[in-house]
């Protein structure tokens, strides 16, 4: 799997190439600058070493030179900044239609669940060439999901979701590290990302004991916890209709308008009083402590899957059958 003495990390995602390009540029730039300064110093040290009868020449300075060697570096820095910013912008903007994987980090393991329902521990199977968006949260302290071969890293926080995405380009097995110190077994919280060719991935998917997609698990929980009592698919419910909610703007009672993203849905379940939708009463019960992270993820997946009411039965999820390509979701 690995050389005994690698000097460059494997390149296995679309991002890796662009990150490496900027890195190599910076290495060359740094080498040139270092060599130039070292050479100057060595040159001066030798050429101007103390010799009898030769005195140093008193030179005050040169404003022109000072401005030159302030402006030129600044110009170069601006270029580097822009280049790095472009890469970062792409890294932080998951493409539409990405497959979603929900990740729950805890001391000291990674729990992952595919949209289709497969669960994994410390391992993530993904197919070459597909965009994968991860929705991450922690059960306890801050962790960080790091795959060097993909050049991606994202801190995983308790109490909210963070996201990261990648598209693998090469089959293989790559390290997954926790990169934010999280206690005793921080260095043991490692795993692997297994990138398979698409055919092999489909085989893996169907071979696994999937207990239904996340969205369908979410639907069961939605019924069990009584959410459907108030969140009906018509306008008669005591709570807002959730169909087509995800990704859309929501007007709150205090006038604020925000987008219904994963964090909004999560917060609305755990501490509903924080953001009351305009026109509704603050009567939703608090579910903090009553749902696990995995259940929350399933509920979020379920709400995301709700089509607009034209799809027929209220609240039916757009479940992704195993083996088929993921349906294009409207948002994100």
């Amino acid at each position, binding site marked *: 799997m690995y050389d005994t003495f690698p000097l460059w990390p494997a390149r296995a995602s679309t991002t890796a190439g662009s990150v490496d390009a900027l890195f190599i540029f910076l290495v060359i730039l740094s080498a040139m600058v270092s060599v130039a300064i070292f050479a100057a110093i060595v040159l001066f040290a030798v050429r101007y070493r103390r010799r009898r009868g030769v005195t140093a020449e008193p030179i005050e300075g040169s404003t022109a030179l000072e401005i030159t060697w302030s402006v030129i570096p600044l110009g170069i820095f601006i270029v580097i900044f822009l280049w790095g910013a472009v890469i970062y912008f792409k890294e932080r903007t998951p493409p539409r239609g990405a497959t979603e994987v929900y990740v729950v980090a805890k001391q000291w393991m990674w729990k992952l669940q595919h949209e289709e329902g497969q669960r994994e521990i410390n391992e993530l199977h993904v197919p070459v060439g597909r965009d994968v968006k991860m929705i991450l949260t922690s059960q306890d302290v801050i962790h960080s999901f790091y795959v060097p071969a993909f050049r991606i890293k994202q801190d995983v926080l308790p109490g909210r979701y963070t996201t990261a995405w990648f598209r693998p380009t090469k089959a293989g097995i790559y390290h997954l590290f926790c990169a934010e110190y999280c206690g005793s077994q921080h260095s043991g919280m490692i795993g692997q990302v297994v990138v398979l060719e698409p055919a092999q991935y489909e085989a893996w998917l169907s071979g696994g004991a999937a207990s239904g997609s996340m969205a369908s698990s979410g639907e069961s929980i939605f019924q069990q916890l009584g959410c459907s009592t108030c969140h009906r698919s018509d306008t008669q419910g005591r709570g807002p209709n959730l169909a087509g909610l995800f990704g859309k703007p929501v007007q709150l009672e205090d006038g604020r308008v925000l987008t219904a993203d994963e964090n909004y849905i999560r917060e609305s379940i755990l*501490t509903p*009083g*924080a953001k*009351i939708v305009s026109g509704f*009463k*603050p*009567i939703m019960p608090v579910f903090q402590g009553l749902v696990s992270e995995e259940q929350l993820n399933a509920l979020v997946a379920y709400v995301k899957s709700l089509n607009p009411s034209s799809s027929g039965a209220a609240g039916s999820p757009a479940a992704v059958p195993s083996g088929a390509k993921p349906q294009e979701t409207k948002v994100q």
Partner: protein
Amino acid sequence: MADSPTAVEHHNPALKHHFVDMEQQREASSLGMWLFLATEIMFFGGMFCAYLIYRYWYFPDFAAASSSLDITLGTVNTAVLICSSLTVVMAVRAAQLGKRQQQVVYLALTLVLGLAFLGVKAIEWTSKFEEHHVPGPTFNFQGSIPGHPDQPVDQHHAQLFFSLYFAMTGMHALHMIIGVGIFAYLLYHAWKGAYTPEYHTPLENSGLYWHFVDIVWIYLFPLLYLIDRKK
């Protein structure tokens, strides 16, 4: 700086050996106190920053928690501190005019007012303790969002308010206690005649400190006590 100071300053017992003259000593002490106050602004600033962020996020719960504070006592304390800043200024003026008796009176008044502030604070905190508004295992805030009697206050957010309330007023009270100690010291030395028109730097600088602690309260009071009060 002249190499030969005036005869008076050369013999001023308050001149420290490493200073050239009293003016340098006075200016150095004053600059030192102003810089120290700058550090205090940054110190309190961290807590104000945390407070402002959470207040913005959890405004209704913070408003509810704030209205449980005793606005009368808070106002009384504000008045007490403002008066005490006045008495400090009068004490410094008395020193400038060489009036020892007046200095002592005004310093004593400042001390009394400072202690009064601390006394009122103790009363407030005691009532908070009795109402179970002290953060920790016994915390229990009963109440609803102002204007929405059917919406209960989030316990966590209310506890955040009170955590910051106690941290900020506690830190302020600690500074008041230190100030009271300083002024007790000044009172004693003023009574012994240590402060003259030529030398009353400790009074001036301690006055600066006292004014600063007063100003911190002037920010704390509306931020903590006056959220969304509709009287």
